[in-house]
């Protein structure tokens, strides 16, 4: 099998506490970032539409035109769907650009689909997340068709404003 994100940190960030291994029957949602087409063309197009010196400046795409440009190939869609269905995963949603697939399945199914993954629950204050503490992999047949699988490693993070807690009188 192939590791799509060998350099992704699996360290649990400060403040998060491990609670339990997730029961195999619990649902998880996996996000598959499907390989897009013509990304180089998209880059050239953005360079043109964003450069005030270009004749194409401001000639933006509609979402439908963007979908036609970068949407995944039939081969990618077919290979990934076959792979998911072989593992009994049918409950999937896509987006208008067709390049993300979000699928709901049981944790035990997800662990079979993504060898190496093991789902655990972590909490921080009122927040609770399910993540894998170990790296996942995918079969070599689908690896060329997926950029990464979301919902396994990255913990929620955001910038916090810096402030004094004092309130005005």
């Amino acid at each position, binding site marked *: 099998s192939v590791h799509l994100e060998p350099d992704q940190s699996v360290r649990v960030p400060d403040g998060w506490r491990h609670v339990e291994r997730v029961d195999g029957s619990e649902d998880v949602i996996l996000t598959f970032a499907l390989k897009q087409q013509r990304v180089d063309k998209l880059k050239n*197009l953005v360079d043109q*539409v*964003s450069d005030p010196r270009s004749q194409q400046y401001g000639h933006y795409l509609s979402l439908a035109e963007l979908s036609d440009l970068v949407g995944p190939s039939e081969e990618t869609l077919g290979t990934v769907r076959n792979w998911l269905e072989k593992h009994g995963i049918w409950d999937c949603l896509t987006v208008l650009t067709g390049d993300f697939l979000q699928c709901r399945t049981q944790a035990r199914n997800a662990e079979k689909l993504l060898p190496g993954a093991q789902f655990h629950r972590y909490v921080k204050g009122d927040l609770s997340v399910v993540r894998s503490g170990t790296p996942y992999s995918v079969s070599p047949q689908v690896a060329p068709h997926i950029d990464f699988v979301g919902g396994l490693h990255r913990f929620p993070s955001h910038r916090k404003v810096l402030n004094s807690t004092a309130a005005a009188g």
Partner: protein
Amino acid sequence: FHLGVTPTVLRQRYNLSASDIGRHPNNSQGCAQFLEQYFHPADLSEFMYLFGRGFSHHSEVDHVVGEQGGGRAGLEASLDVEYIMSTGANISTWVFSNPGRHESQEPFLQWMILLSNMSSVPWVHTISYGDDEDTLSVAFMQRINVEFLKAASRGLTILFASGDDGAGCREVVKAKNVFRPSFPASSPYVTTVGGTSFKNPFQVTREVTDYISGGGFSNVFPMPQYQVSAVSKYLQSTEKLPPESYYNRSGRAYPDVAALSDNYWVVINRVPVPWVSGTSASTPVFGGIIALINDHRLQKGLPTLGFLNPALYALKGDGLSDVTEGCHLSCIDDIVLGQGFCATPSWDPVTGWGTPNFPELLKALLR
């Protein structure tokens, strides 16, 4: 004289007159929240009542995408909404609330996916989210970068806070440190906003570097063509730079611009709170100003600004007030002694090209 940053202070400093407000019906701006951060409409209303005098503005958000939870309001969410609507006054405002509906979802990724699934979204987005580059996989960052390209191709402007840790610091091996860039601030296809403070904290004076202002050079993304000249000039002409072993001179350099990030007033849970700081504050302020410029462009039948950086770097600082004083923080070790990069005339990796001077920036971006 003032006791902290309010909409009036910002509008005075950035030369926004009472008539500098949004007017075009198709204009819009938005901010995204993660981690179950919510704002209260009552706080926004009170904020505008207390601080929003002297200019026309909305006191309500037009669209909330996602669920607004109950309970107490979050400081971050309240700050974003209150200030994007202060500079981007009278402009239709959206709030994207992305807690991650399921425990296994990634809130930031959910927001990105949402953009790919909505044919109508605001023209300007401000986001105060970031992770250290070295904690994320290159595959993830490269793909998110393509998502920013997708947004740029649609004419959307995406602004990210540059972070609150200066150049950052990471110990690679024992006693050997390097600076620590932040993503998505380091993406070449977003506009990154750094932070400043008033030279005199109680007067509307010129601005100096806010020492927390995030900035530096990406270890993942090479320097894009639009900034090569500006960054090369900085690297060649600055006398005192940190040792080269601390950063990647050929990486995407950020921030691109800056705005005040220190000593804000925010109304949260019906209480006015002073001394709120961070680039989370400067980002919605700059975003509102870009939305105002979009408004003028739309009124003239011109397209929106979209991905801003090529136009911004072509201006070479025109329309922005250069910040030339102060340094930001970095590794506390014997070599750099806690100091990262310093502001200089023209572009620098602490405050970018500087802070907005609205009438001049408008003129430059309408040309």
